[in-house]
């Protein structure tokens, strides 16, 4: 009886520990598509991946799907320029480690959208650019301002 009680207590303890905010955030990511560069668009990539900077680009703010072929130009604090192109689901990532702050601009077909401010430390664009714009979210990263 005593052993069973100890075992039950141990199980409860194990269940209660080990959940950091990052763990909880990682658990909340909805898995979309097979694992690879095109999976989980719109999620905070650096929760699981060791990229320098990564995110998802949409054509318009309200679009549900990302857009391919957008050039993402990242200029870091030392003046180094990293360029990536969004893939079929709108995802892009760079393995280069930038020196923050980083200025980001997206462009396609002559349309340019510079980020008004800079990225200071979070390489996951989706940490600040969540689907719905709000008090602590700038909304999706989008190319065209038309609704």
């Amino acid at each position, binding site marked *: 009886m005593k052993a069973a009680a100890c075992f039950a207590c141990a199980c409860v303890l194990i269940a209660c520990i080990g959940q950091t905010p990052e763990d909880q955030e990682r658990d909340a990511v909805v898995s979309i598509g097979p694992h690879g560069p095109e999976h989980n668009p719109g999620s905070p990539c650096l929760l699981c991946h060791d990229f320098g900077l990564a995110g998802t680009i949409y054509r318009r703010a309200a679009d549900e799907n990302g857009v391919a072929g957008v050039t993402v130009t990242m200029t870091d604090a030392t003046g180094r320029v990293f360029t990536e192109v969004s893939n079929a689901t709108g995802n892009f990532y760079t393995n280069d480690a930038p020196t923050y702050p980083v200025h980001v601009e997206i462009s396609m077909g002559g349309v340019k959208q510079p980020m008004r*401010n800079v*990225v*200071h430390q979070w390489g996951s664009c989706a940490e600040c650019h969540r689907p719905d714009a709000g*008090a*602590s979210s*700038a909304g999706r990263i989008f190319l065209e301002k038309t609704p």
Partner: protein
Amino acid sequence: MRRALVAIVLVACSGPSPGTTNAPRALDQAAYDRDVQPIVEARCATLDCHGHFDRPLRLYAETGLRRSDELRGLPITAQELADNVAAAAAIDDSLILDKALGAMKHTGGALFTGTDDPQYVCVRGWLVGASADAAVASACAIAATQVALPPP
């Protein structure tokens, strides 16, 4: 003698009586709005730094944290600017300045190049109530050109 000692100890340990707590310092709101907020927005208040509800020094900005969802995309409000001043007034000047200089542990690292950095001179001048001084005003004018954000 014993009673006198007890009284002295009690007075020494009691601290300020209720209602006489240290009032926040009076900082120049107009000078903040004009000179300091552009620096704060560009250097401190992004969503991945002090533009975060969980931060001890929470700072609002048009491109950063907003007081409510519906303010996203709108110019910064007087209430948000007042909240930023209140947040700065609640902590010691040296904490703000030393962290921004990188002289104290600061996740964001050193924001200013040194004590002659126009942005530093502008922020420090405001904190010490010297925004009207010619040297501070001149530094703020230079800083404004350094931190200007593109239009929405």
